[in-house]
């Protein structure tokens, strides 16, 4: 499909558990002269994928497509791309007539506006939806970024990213489930289509990791990728910047394995007891001695996760330092 200057190109998807460095990787790839990846689309595309068959009546009529495109243009997540997407380009011939075509068109128009050739989407939620991605884009390439789950848990706690995720047991369970699902689904794709990368390796030797990634993407390596930090202002919404304080500088190698210095032995034990096998399978060190501690703490997390929705009310009764210690804060 080559028409109206919109070539058909294979999309690439960055997936990974929350707080695994997917935003860093997105900025790095986005700094490549041929790749355009806008800010995390979050619930946007999965929601519209569902709505396509209901609200937009399976996109059977051109009017349904126009309605969807119009609604999408009004979405805050699309506006956060901060790029003018002309309606006539979005609806140019051939008119998209399936949901994946609409999604591809938005990304293609975005990429073209930035003078790029390939489009990509970064979404932490699609980690467990590789089956859907693969069905929608049968030739897409998928990059799974994996980070030591203990660091994900620490990062969740320090950033208060999502309510309830200061609970290490909960993060450990979700990390184990989601990363396993993604890994196993990805193993079903050919190595030309699925690439697994450790965040720690990306930090330790960015040039080597990005070279391998470019090889996977069939693109020449570009040193501009390492200059990603110069584009933070234009590519990360200002109100979200506090979630990634380190993005405005070159890779900070000390950001790997922070749990070694920052995580309590109890939390570490809870995490390793829950997800130790998966940690080891990705080459992360675990300790048998540590995994025997923290049984009481685990019990507390268990109760905490069951009562999480009541915790907001309860935490008012405790002094602040106590609430923070036991993860009652937000």
């Amino acid at each position, binding site marked *: 499909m080559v028409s109206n200057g919109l070539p058909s190109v294979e999309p690439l998807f960055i997936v990974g558990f929350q707080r695994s460095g997917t935003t860093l990787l997105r900025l790095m790839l986005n700094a490549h002269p041929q790749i355009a990846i806008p800010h995390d689309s979050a619930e946007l595309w999965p929601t519209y994928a569902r709505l396509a068959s209901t609200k937009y009546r399976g996109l059977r009529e051109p009017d349904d497509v126009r309605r969807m495109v119009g609604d999408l243009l009004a979405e805050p997540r699309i506006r956060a791309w901060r790029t003018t997407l002309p309606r006539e380009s979005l609806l140019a011939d051939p008119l998209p007539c399936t949901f994946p075509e609409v999604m591809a068109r938005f990304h293609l128009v975005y990429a073209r506006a930035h003078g790029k050739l390939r489009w990509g989407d970064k979404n932490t939620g699609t980690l467990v939806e*590789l*089956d859907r991605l693969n069905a929608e884009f049968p030739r897409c390439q998928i990059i799974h970024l994996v980070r030591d789950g203990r660091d994900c848990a620490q990062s969740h706690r320090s950033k208060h990213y999502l309510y309830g995720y200061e609970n290490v047991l909960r993060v450990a369970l979700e990390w184990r489930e989601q990363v*396993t699902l993604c890994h*196993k*689904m990805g*193993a079903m794709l050919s190595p030309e289509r699925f690439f697994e990368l450790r965040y720690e390796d990306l930090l330790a030797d960015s040039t080597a990791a990005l070279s391998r990634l470019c090889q996977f993407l069939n693109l020449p390596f570009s040193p501009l990728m390492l200059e990603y930090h110069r584009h933070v202002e234009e590519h990360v919404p200002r109100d979200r910047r506090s979630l990634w304080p380190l993005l405005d500088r070159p890779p900070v190698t000390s950001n790997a394995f922070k749990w070694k210095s920052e995580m309590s032995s109890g939390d570490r034990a809870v995490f390793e007891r829950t997800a130790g096998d998966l940690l080891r399978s990705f080459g992360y060190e675990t300790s048998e001695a540590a995994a025997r501690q923290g049984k009481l703490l685990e*019990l507390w997390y268990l109760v905490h996760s069951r009562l999480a929705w009541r915790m907001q009310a309860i935490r008012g009764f405790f002094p602040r330092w106590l609430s923070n210690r036991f993860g009652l804060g937000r």
Partner: protein
Amino acid sequence: MTQARDACLMPTAAAEASAVPFFVVGEQRSGTTKLRIMLNNHPRLAVPFESGFIPVFFGRLAEYGSLTEPSNAERLLNDICLHPKVDKGGLVPDVAAVLSRRIASYRDLVDAIFREYAKRKGKARWGDKTPAYITEVETIASIFPEARLIHVVRDGRDVALSLGGLNWGSRHIPRIAQDWRWKTVLAHKVGTVLGDRFLEVRFEDIVRDAEGELRRICEFLGEPFDPAVLAYSASAESEMPPDSMQWHRTSTRPPDPAKVYEWKRRMPIADRILFEAAAGDALELFGYERERLAPTLGSRIKGLYYAVVRRW
């Protein structure tokens, strides 16, 4: 299809070569044994008792070195024979016969074991039924990239009831629900990526319309449908290790519609609420009824009991 139809029923070399293996997986107590026995009645298919060893030794291949070396292959095969499931099912009665086949890789060795089994049964094509491989679909698919995979799903609440009736089964409803949800959804998703080499069948549909479902399965396997698969014979019991028969009393009998959605009659309300709370999304995914009952005092107490007291 035509290829399969042309192949003669006795295992000739050509028919053996064209036979792509298949694997039946599923959560425990989901009717995989019933399906295995039905498929075994097919004149071309041989499915032994659970093999269990394939992913185990795949992860330990480094210990054995190159399998082109006959002594390495023999050492590995001897260890495989010691695996409890292999031993119990009597999968390898003749080590020499397996080793006399051409073995250059782990895949060849596994293939040789099953081909020998099929040959003894006078069948042209082998399959495997090991419920535990449900979490190892990707390992199986990497060893046998052309293999066909059949995922048998049964309403998790019936699985829980069935487990509750066994002396080795768990009665911990939330844990069973989580386990059922995790395994079935995992297999479903990995299988979806696998595409047309993956088939999902519901136990309930096999009971309701055995012929229709078995025709679908035969078509998926590229085999002609044979009415023999619907016939239940006493000989089926001879294909089970005798001490396992007690767990499979209904597997060798014609499907009993009363076993479908038995939970509606026999499962306590509190258990149903707990199960749905833990696995409601998966029930919906596979098209099973959701009750959406509000938590009762009983279900709350039971849930807390399972979560805190019966934890370890």
